[in-house]
């Protein structure tokens, strides 16, 4: 599936919820199912320090594809991370670099991408794209 298709799939899933509680419960659930992050990789260089919740992000490049792993100490943040990883894991650098991330807005979780430095998500997205750019430069040129 393309990153666009995955995003549309997520939007579909969320469309059945008609109130925020269900959405957030689903998000929390999603967060709880996020693949475990290797504690050893909770290094300062993998840390994205939000004012509020902390995010750890790591990535590997294998056979043309990127494998992201990530974690957060806040479960709601973790839920969003899980969604982002679903969109972007096992995608090529070009896929990641060229994605227009529209689903977060569409599923009504935009407040999680506020311009505050609160949860580190905005930086996380930036860093995921930066990984893609770096891998492309390193392995594909």
């Amino acid at each position: 599936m393309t990153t666009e298709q995955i995003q549309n799939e997520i939007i579909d899933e969320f469309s059945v919820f008609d109130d925020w509680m269900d959405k957030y419960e689903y998000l929390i659930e999603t967060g709880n199912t996020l693949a475990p992050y290797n504690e050893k990789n909770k290094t300062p260089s993998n840390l994205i320090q939000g004012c509020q919740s902390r995010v750890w992000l790591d990535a590997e490049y294998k056979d043309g594809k990127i494998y992201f792993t990530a974690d957060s100490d806040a479960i709601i943040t973790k839920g969003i991370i899980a969604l982002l990883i679903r969109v972007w894991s096992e995608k090529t650098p070009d896929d990641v670099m060229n994605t227009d991330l529209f689903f977060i807005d569409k599923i009504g979780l935009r407040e999680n991408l506020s311009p505050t430095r609160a949860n580190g998500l905005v930086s996380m997205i930036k860093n995921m794209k930066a990984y893609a750019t770096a891998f492309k430069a390193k392995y594909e040129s």
Partner: protein
Amino acid sequence: MFEIEKIRKQFPILKQKVNGKDLVYLDNGATVQKPEQVIDIINKMYSQYNSNIHRGVHYLSNKSTELYEGSRETIRKFINAGVTEEIIFTKGTTDAINLIAFSFGEKFINEGDEILIAETEHHSNIVPWQMLCKRKKAHIKVIPADENGELILSEYKKLLNKKTKLVAVAHVANSTGIINPIEEIIAEAHKSGAKVLIDGAQAVQHKKVDVQQLNCDFYVFSGHKMYAETGIGVLYGKKELLEEIPPYQGGGDMIKSVSFAKTEYADLPLKFEAGTSNYVGAISMGEAVNFINSIGKANLERHETELLKYAEEKLSLIDGLTIYGKSENKTSAISFLLHRIHFYDVGMILDKLGIAVRTGAHCAEPTMKHFGITGTVRASFAVYNTKEEIDILSEGILKAQKMLS
């Protein structure tokens, strides 16, 4: 008579719906909402009287200047300063502390000197001193807090010595709401020959403050936390001291005469008010004092104390909830965590319920470190809050707890 509904009516923002719910605004420690009379005066300034102050001879300029200087006098009375020249308008508390860190620092801080601050300070009362100490090769000494967040006075006394030039302590700690024993802190510092700056950012809006009685050397606070505009604050300083220390910023209005050979500075208070002062902000601050006076500080204090007690009772009933900062001497704020649940998640869920609280380290990382945590959820009160709102908060916390565990 304290009529809460009448008071609430004066705050247009409280009629807001947030996420479909009635707004329950409990983030007053960050900034307080504004009553109509303050919003009106700002409006009136820009629609009728606006003109730059001090330098004009025309009607509007006189009008603005009169209102500005009138506000200074209102604020003098509010904190009972001796003379109006002791009231300096700044951008806010942070600006005022930086001013003192620079000007007092230039005059009185030398290599090896010591500045005492409390472990529970806001970053704005930590970082300026760190910067000063770095510049002057001086040292910061920290007054430790006990496990409840109260300052340990016996340790404080041990820290005081001849090298101590300044003690900078909050009147009320913003992350816990604890009222520090500043009377004793000030008296002890003076015995030892040190000056004292009190950070009143979390105090003036809740408690009666009398700077002459306190006998502090400097007292600073922000307009936006006491029902006035953002971008304005006050530095109170004893006249003799303010006269002794050099100006902080240079520019228009703070000079007597300028030439390339020799520039003479203006007298107090203008010496410390370089550039176009935020006169509309200052005027809004005078009006905010009028608002507070119309309620009466005693009434306001009684109401807020009741709220705090009620909140403490209510929240104590919640299983797995820990309150940070325990003391008989607290005002208007309650900081807590739910067992194994991140404060950010609680804040997000409460927001969805229309409840605005603050989460995080509250610009007081050392305090958080002291408690061995990275942040809390803080509900903080103003005069317009009600017990019903605390009920809503408590239900909200229970709901969040259920969703998140």
